[in-house]
């Protein structure tokens, strides 16, 4: 939403400035330039101001140092996606920009700010002149040195510049800086204030005559929370009652483990960093056998190793939660980039008729909710539950409207209450699809479970008739879950009576929802159907959505269209409702990309 307004500059000159309530700023630099920290501070200021904000970080493959970039989107309306194109590009040097060029698309009229120290003449910078960029060279190094005696403060100085240039909440930025450095020395804090002031003063002094043609308008609102998807997921697990987390470090899931390593112990819980992913899920199954809610998280390569325990938890009917923060695969793939490529594995992994449940959160806040839900389902249905998140969802930090963490009910498993004279039978026929679990320590509930097919008591059997009955019991749970919870675990967004439908899952929902928002404003009636429950597939609510639209597009970030083909096998899809747009990951979808696909669908 950009419109042209006439504004008066401090110097009294009149110029045309576009106002916007939605701005995307990209910052690129080398290790030590502090670009990530600048981005984090902008987002923190915006959230405190009650604005919506999101930050997506990107790093070179170096362990430390090397190039890094972040893109920050600040908006008055819910910032659903990372924002396709940059309205503002800050480059501390152009060599670093070159490495991220593929990821940082620039908008027409982009304001390009770069450090004079880089030395590249204005007419030689790698920005397409056809975009008619507004280019500013600012002597960040010199200004920072002058103001604070060190060029290290240039990332803070940058915030002063950005605030003043684009009418961002400058007080909010100052407060965010003060908050972040509140435990640092008086000296450091004073230097930050000076750097911020110097940045603002530079703009007022040097650019008053020719203000940049972009102004951000907003008003103060209720402060938002700020969290990453991985933090939200870990917090949800804690809320759900998880008291053992076991895991093995792996990108992009390690933040879940690190967060719980800090938080679990004071709740009497344990974070165990194991020797491998097999041990990680093994400890969870062992703990859950003892009545403790347990979770592990991993990414594709670790998930491969967990498959044998997934089968054990399924046949032994042990609740356990596995979070898969997907990254580009197969194998090691691209560890730091996102892809929705593990669906086929989690939907089918394991020899035998292995039941499992798969849920997928659709935004950062939903990572909290789905973590609670995953535990609730695991406990109620005594089966493993996989949460499918991904790098884009797990590692982006996003503003979240404060929510009541106590409003979410927590479900505990059905436990054995004594049978009187009758001996305890772990898998008693007649209990339906789940039986009360006797937990070690409960007298009268002693029994043995195993990965072997078993009779009602848990004792092993080779009977094919019993095997068929037990398979049916284990799969009846899934049918019941889809029947009882399917409707509430399929979300719809967008126009109330859509003509065109988008079906997607997980992190792609963000861009799909924003695409629908954009299309609906342009007069198209577009709706988005987002199943949070993927396995078992809630067939009825998805079919109902499809029936209401004339055409439907399935969108997912993997080469094969993994979920689409899984759903096709379960839904009666005609050609009009079976359009697929799937592509390999690395870069998440842009909103425009989905808009274009939907428009093409409309013309089909």
């Amino acid at each position: 939403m950009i419109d042209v307004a006439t504004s008066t500059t401090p110097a009294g000159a009149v110029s045309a400035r576009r106002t916007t309530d939605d701005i995307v700023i990209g910052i690129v630099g080398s290790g030590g330039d502090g670009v990530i920290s600048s981005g984090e501070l902008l987002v923190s200021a915006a959230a405190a101001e009650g604005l919506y904000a999101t930050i997506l970080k990107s790093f070179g493959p170096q362990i430390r140092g090397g190039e890094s970039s972040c893109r920050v989107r600040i908006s008055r309306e819910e910032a659903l996606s990372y924002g396709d194109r940059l309205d503002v590009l800050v480059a501390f040097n152009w060599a670093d920009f070159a490495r991220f060029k593929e990821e940082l698309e620039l908008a027409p009229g982009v304001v390009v700010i770069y450090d004079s120290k880089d030395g590249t003449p204005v007419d030689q910078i790698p920005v397409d002149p056809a975009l008619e960029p507004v280019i500013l060279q600012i002597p960040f190094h010199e200004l920072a040195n002058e103001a604070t005696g060190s060029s290290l403060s240039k990332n803070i100085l940058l915030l002063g510049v950005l605030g003043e240039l684009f009418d961002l909440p400058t007080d909010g930025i100052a407060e965010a800086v003060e908050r972040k450095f509140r435990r640092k020395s008086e000296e450091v804090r004073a230097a930050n204030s000076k750097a911020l002031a110097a940045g603002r003063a530079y703009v007022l002094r040097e650019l008053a005559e020719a203000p940049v043609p972009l102004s951000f308008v907003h008003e103060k609102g209720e402060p938002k929370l700020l969290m990453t998807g991985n933090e939200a997921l870990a917090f949800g697990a804690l809320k759900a009652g998880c008291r053992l987390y076991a895991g093995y470090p792996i990108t992009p899931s390690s933040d879940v483990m690190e967060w719980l390593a800090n938080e679990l112990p004071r709740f009497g819980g344990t974070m165990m960093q194991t020797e491998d992913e097999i041990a990680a899920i093994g400890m969870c199954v062992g703990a859950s056998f003892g009545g403790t809610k347990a979770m592990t998280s991993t990414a594709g390569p670790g998930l491969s190793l967990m498959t044998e325990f997934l089968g054990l938890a399924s046949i032994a009917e042990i609740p356990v939660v596995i979070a898969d923060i997907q990254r580009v695969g197969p194998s090691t793939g691209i560890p730091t980039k996102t892809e929705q490529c593990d669906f086929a594995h989690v939907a089918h992994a394991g020899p035998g008729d292995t039941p499992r449940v798969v849920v997928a959160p659709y935004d950062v806040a939903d990572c909290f909710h789905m973590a609670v839900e995953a535990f609730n389902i695991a406990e109620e249905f005594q089966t493993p539950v996989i949460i499918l998140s991904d790098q884009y969802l797990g590692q982006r930090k996003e503003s979240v409207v404060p929510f009541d963490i106590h409003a979410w009910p927590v479900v505990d498993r059905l436990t054995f209450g004594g049978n009187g004279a009758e001996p305890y039978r772990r898998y008693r026929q007649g209990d339906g699809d789940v039986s009360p679990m006797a937990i070690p320590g409960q007298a009268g509930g002693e029994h043995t479970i195993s990965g072997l097919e078993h009779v009602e008591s848990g004792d092993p059997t080779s009977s094919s008739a019993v095997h068929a009955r037990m398979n049916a019991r284990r799969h009846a749970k899934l049918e019941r879950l889809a029947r009882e919870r399917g409707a509430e675990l399929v979300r719809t967004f967008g126009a109330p009576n859509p003509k065109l439908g988008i079906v997607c899952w997980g992190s792609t929902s963000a861009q799909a929802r924003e695409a629908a928002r954009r299309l609906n404003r342009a007069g198209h009636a577009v709706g988005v159907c987002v199943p949070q429950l993927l396995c078992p597939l809630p067939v009825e609510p998805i079919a109902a959505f499809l029936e209401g639209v004339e055409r439907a597009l399935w969108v997912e970030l993997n080469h094969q269209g993994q979920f689409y083909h899984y759903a096709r096998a379960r839904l009666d899809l005609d050609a009009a409702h079976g359009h697929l747009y799937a592509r390999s990951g690395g870069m998440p979808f842009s909103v425009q990309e989905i808009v274009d696909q939907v428009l093409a669908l409309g013309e089909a």
Partner: protein
Amino acid sequence: MATALAGIPRAETKLSAKDFKTDLKPIWCPGCGDFGVLAALTKALSEVQVAPENVAVMTGIGCAGRLPGYVNGYGFNALHGRVLPLATGLKLTRPDLLVFAAGGDGDGLAIGAGHFPHAARRNPDITYLMFDNQVYGLTKGQFSPTTPMGDVTTTTRFGSIESPVNPATLAMAYGASFVARAFSGNVNHHAEMILEAFRHPGFAFIQSIPPCVTFRGNEQFKTIRERARWLNTDGNDHDPSDWGAAWEIANQTDIYDMSFGIIWRQARPTYEERLGFLREKAGKRGPAELDSVLDQFRP
């Protein structure tokens, strides 16, 4: 230092070894050495006087894997090679249980070898008994990581060309705080070893030799019985806190030239104890309240 068994509720009535046996008939071959281990385990359990509901017997896969079904208590016959993660996960969330983990030599030293060092160094208060019969019995006679070089098995028709590993020296090198060796042909001594393992606070490893009469010949029982040396009896004095002496005994690999008894014992804080210290430290972050956790997400 905590004493092992201190936090585990005891049975109110006197229980016998028989009370710890279930009615399930073992699938083991007639004359199998595993029967002796089962007898020793149930005897040790009855001597501890722990109530069956507070016993968890966990195993991997193999002949030994069937053990939980035959012991009165909670049992979990899990995956091949994965008993140690499972048992650790249970013990550190349920310190009030007596956790007994077991598996064969293939289970613990081939497929599950990656878990052994980590369980040993972490030192959770569990007992890990390895049924070291030097062969894969359940799959009918293939060579295992402890099969002596040159031995003929179904997969080494011309004699094994691999050097075997030694479970006892591995356990010591990995940092197990208790290492003992037992022979299933001497149930009383074997039961005593299990009892000592229960009493030891920390990771207690027992290398048990239960002869496989089907695939390793029926001479083993007799020959071991004739030649076995029993530590700290008949003048075989041994100080289990003496690393050098312990290593020398652990280093014996010929089952016909072996010492049985407590080889190595070391007092060291258990994982659960260290976890207690960690929780105390972590408690300084703030109260265990979700609302205070939420505060960290406020900008």
